[in-house]
């Protein structure tokens, strides 16, 4: 990144802004107005009009419930411009009016419903509903009264008709009198605690062509939204600039290799009334020390990019920090695979992801599904190593093959039992024939404890190496060699000491312990002094934490095992009256067994998506990132002034 200053005459501010927006190169540093010589800039062009139109459009799109989606077609700017008036005033007006009408009708429906509720008791008065309406010379009073009204009504209006009825502790009356007596009768009625209610005339229906309207205009509306947002952004951009009476100044960061392009393009756009200057590194560093953030542009190959999601969730790397995305791309899916490790589950997850990828085209979903896809592939690979297809006792032994019962007993007696599956005619592979590894076997658990620990040692060491590198980048040699390095030595040789103990290589143990002691001494000599020793237990617990790679996997294997065992060896024989041979199982027993089997495996797959995701995430965030990442606070993402066109044609 290079720090640049763009200064020019106000005459050319519009073309310059236009060009900057098109180039999408300059990460603008907002001017905060702290220098008396410069004022904050003022919006240019028709900023107000654009904003107003945008608000109008947004209200229409909100009515139509339009969400941001993947573009189906794109529009040239000229078409958007020519159709904007029609869209905003006619279509927008229609939509707004329709929705206002719908709101009205809904309110009406609500009030009618209330009325119906209160009118239901009217059924106690022996009159049809239409008898309450449509008189010229008659006044109608319908309502409840506390005391009988007949006598008093007859007193003020000899010509009358009164109907009464009682329902739910209230007396309902319908009084018909000549119109000219209405006011007197009303007065009399009120003495009797009369409260009137209106009798509804329900009619009308809600019919709308909203759906077709939405279909017709959705993309165009979103394109217009995009166009207007772009224009607002452009016309309001001078608010971020510094201005004098006749000139403007823009501060910003630009990727160093793009500087000359920015300079040439801007100067040709402004026709010479502009100057683009590169600020020397030394001066730029002063600015950074003064609190300015150098923006970070994360630049990863497209296959790695989905994993930026995980990095971003934690923090954007600072400019001089290492972007850990590539490491996440390497370690995360392997850890996921190591935990889930089941061919059947892996394939089902891949199928679900393929469906999701086709169904949801927005960028976020695409990234998330790609992220999981790579992990799913690793789950299948580890599934092959573990010889698991829908858990132990699942399909593997039947589909691929297994060793004979006799061989299995021999291996168990010799203490070399690592599982009973085979790779078909290839038999069992690897040293001592450990693959396919049956994860619930004692030997396999012990082996996986070791493997998990060493995954931890490698993972943490990579973190420590990066920590050393980052500290050196910031010029902190003492922190690099006496804070980060001893941690790495400690963890690596802790792992080696354990390995030596297990394998009985005492020389290795002695050497490792010696290095551990040296590393502890180095920690004491480090910047934290003796306080650094307080962290030592946490370096051990860091490594033990990687046991979760085994543990979460065991939980999932255990559940799959339970599902298979329950279904094939408990439910099915039990419901078939104690039959032990699968050929003797009754049909209902098989149906019940399969239902239980499928539901437990379904739950296990759901858990198998969630926990193998969360735990490697934690291993990265807590165990690895703490070694090197964000030791100097989070960074700011490089977001150049400009816009990626989605619904608009370039």
């Amino acid at each position, binding site marked *: 990144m290079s720090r640049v200053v763009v200064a020019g005459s106000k005459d050319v501010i519009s073309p310059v802004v236009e060009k900057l927006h098109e180039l999408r190169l300059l990460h603008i540093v907002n001017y905060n107005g702290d220098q008396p010589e410069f004022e904050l800039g003022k919006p240019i062009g028709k900023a107000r009009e654009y904003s107003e139109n945008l608000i109008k459009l947004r209200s229409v799109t909100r009515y139509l419930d339009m969400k941001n989606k993947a573009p189906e077609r794109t529009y040239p700017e000229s078409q958007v411009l020519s159709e904007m008036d029609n869209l905003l005033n006619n279509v927008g007006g229609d939509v707004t009016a329709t929705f206002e009408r719908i709101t009205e009708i809904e309110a009406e429906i609500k009030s009618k419903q209330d009325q119906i509720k209160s009118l239901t008791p009217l059924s106690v008065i022996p009159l049809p509903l239409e008898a309450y309406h449509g008189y010229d010379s008659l006044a109608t009073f319908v309502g409840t009264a506390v005391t009988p009204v007949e006598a008093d009504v007859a007193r003020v209006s000899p010509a009358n008709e009164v109907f009464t009825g009682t329902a739910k502790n209230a007396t309902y009356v319908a009084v018909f009198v000549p119109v000219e007596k209405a006011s007197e009768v009303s007065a009399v009625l009120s003495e009797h605690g009369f409260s009137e209610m209106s009798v509804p005339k329900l009619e009308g229906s809600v019919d709308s062509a909203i759906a077709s309207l939405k279909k017709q205009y959705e993309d165009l509306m979103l394109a217009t939204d995009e166009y207007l947002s772009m224009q607002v952004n452009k016309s309001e951009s001078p608010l971020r600039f510094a201005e004098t009476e006749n000139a403007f100044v823009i501060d910003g960061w630009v990727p160093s290799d793009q500087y000359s392009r920015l300079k040439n393009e801007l100067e040709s756009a402004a026709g010479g009334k502009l100057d683009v200057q590169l600020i020397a590194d030394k001066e730029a560093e002063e600015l950074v020390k003064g609190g300015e953030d150098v923006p970070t542009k994360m630049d990863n190959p497209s296959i790695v990019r989905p994993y930026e999601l995980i990095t*971003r*969730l*934690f*923090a954007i790397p600072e400019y001089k920090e290492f972007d850990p995305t590539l490491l996440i791309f390497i370690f995360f899916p392997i850890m996921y695979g190591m935990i889930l490790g089941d061919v059947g589950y892996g394939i089902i997850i891949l199928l679900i992801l393929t469906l999701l990828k086709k169904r949801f085209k927005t960028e976020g979903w695409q990234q998330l599904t790609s992220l999981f896809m790579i992990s799913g592939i690793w789950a299948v690979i580890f599934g092959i190593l573990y010889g698991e297809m829908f858990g132990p006792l699942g399909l593997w032994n039947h589909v691929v093959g297994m060793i004979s019962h006799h061989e299995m007993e021999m291996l168990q007696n010799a203490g070399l039992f690592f599982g009973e599956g085979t790779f078909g005619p290839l038999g069992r592979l690897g040293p001592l024939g450990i693959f396919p590894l049956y994860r619930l076997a*004692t030997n396999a*658990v*012990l082996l996986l*404890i070791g493997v998990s620990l060493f995954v931890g040692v490698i993972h943490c060491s990579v973190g420590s190496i990066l920590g050393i590198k980052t500290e050196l980048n910031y010029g902190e040699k003492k922190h690099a060699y006496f804070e980060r390095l001893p941690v790495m030595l400690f963890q690596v040789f802790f792992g080696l000491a354990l390995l030596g103990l297990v394998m009985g290589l005492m020389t290795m143990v002695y050497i490792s312990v010696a290095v551990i002691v040296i590393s502890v001494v180095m920690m004491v000599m480090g910047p934290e002094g003796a306080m650094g020793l307080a962290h030592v237990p946490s370096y051990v*617990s860091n490594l*033990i*934490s990687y*046991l*979760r790679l085994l*543990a979460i996997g065991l939980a999932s294997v255990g559940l799959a095992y339970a599902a298979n065992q329950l279904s094939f060896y408990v439910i099915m024989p039990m419901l078939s009256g104690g039959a032990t041979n699968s050929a003797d199982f009754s049909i209902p027993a098989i149906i019940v067994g399969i239902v239980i089997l499928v539901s437990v495996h379904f739950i296990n797959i759901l858990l198998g998506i969630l926990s193998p995701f*969360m735990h490697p*995430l*934690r291993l990265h*965030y*807590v165990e690895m*990132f703490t070694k090197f990442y964000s030791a100097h606070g989070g960074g700011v993402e490089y977001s150049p002034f400009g816009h990626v066109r989605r619904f608009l044609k370039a």
Partner: protein
Amino acid sequence: MVVVADAGILYGLIAVGAGLATGLAGIGAGVGEQGIGAAVVGVVAEEPGFLGKGLFLMLLPETLIIFGLAVSLILMFAWTPFSAIVTP
């Protein structure tokens, strides 16, 4: 060698111990996480950008369960001193 106890009972006690180790560690981690979780939800409601950091803090006590689990695994799979006592 004196037989101190029946092998079955010893193995049963080991299993109970292993269960307690993981179970109690789980309860401990849960108690630790509940306060952090509540605080994180509060922070994220105000400032969604803190989700990652909140998650980081919330996942810290989880290691406790793994400690318990490590003890359980050692008890169940790698604990051998009894074997000398058990085998007559």
